[in-house]
């Protein structure tokens, strides 16, 4: 079995599953919000905040941002281990890859906190 210290679950099979489950959650969220916006062409501020005031919508949106963090982490990790390699970058590859992964993690942490703030400040 392929394992790696920096992969999400230290196991390719686990990451594979995380990528699929989070993809389905994100698909559901974007399809739902897309249909909602398409069917409310003259949307008002009140309707929009009422939607995000629903406990169900908050849970759904929090689930979606958590799914996005997991999904983006697995995706960016895969890209970094495919392209930021010694074959491409030489000796600096390991440092560059680790920095890239840490930067990804920092951005995702900001996204998660930001989205949580948006949801609970309404």
């Amino acid at each position, binding site marked *: 079995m392929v394992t790696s210290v920096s992969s999400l679950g230290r196991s390719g099979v686990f990451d594979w599953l995380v990528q699929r489950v989070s993809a389905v959650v994100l*698909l559901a969220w974007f399809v739902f919000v897309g249909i909602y916006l398409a069917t409310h062409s003259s949307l008002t501020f009140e309707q*929009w905040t009422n939607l995000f005031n629903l406990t169900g919508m908050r849970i759904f949106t929090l689930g979606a941002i958590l799914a996005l963090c997991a999904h983006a982490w697995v995706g960016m990790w895969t*890209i970094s281990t495919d392209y930021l390699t010694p074959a491409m970058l030489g000796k600096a590859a390991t440092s560059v890859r680790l920095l890239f992964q840490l930067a*990804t993690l920092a*951005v995702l942490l900001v996204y998660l906190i930001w989205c949580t703030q948006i949801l609970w400040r309404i």
Partner: protein
Amino acid sequence: MKPKRPVNLDIGTIDLPLAALTSITHRISGVALFAATAVLLYLLNQSLVSEQGFLYVRSIIGSTPVKLVLWVILSALGYHMVAGCKHLLMDIGIGETKAGGPIGARITIGLSVVLSLVVEVWLW
């Protein structure tokens, strides 16, 4: 990590078939969406924080440069979702053949072009 790991493929020397091009585009759109999430969260934040913010988002979405940016982001999202659905179908064994590869790639391109046009009509 072993100091000398074998390099089996020199990707730069390989001609990419259509299925490989749709695959790399899936990756590129994924990285683009990673960055675009900041734009989407900004719009979500503004639209929910106050009525002025909501009206501000409505007004900037009406301007051509913002429409173009949103159109690119939503097209990338549409492409990424269609290509992702193709992945899920292949995971359950649909289209996993040599003939299925280019067919799946063509369907992916076709559907995402349609989605992109739908978004364009919707925005303008």
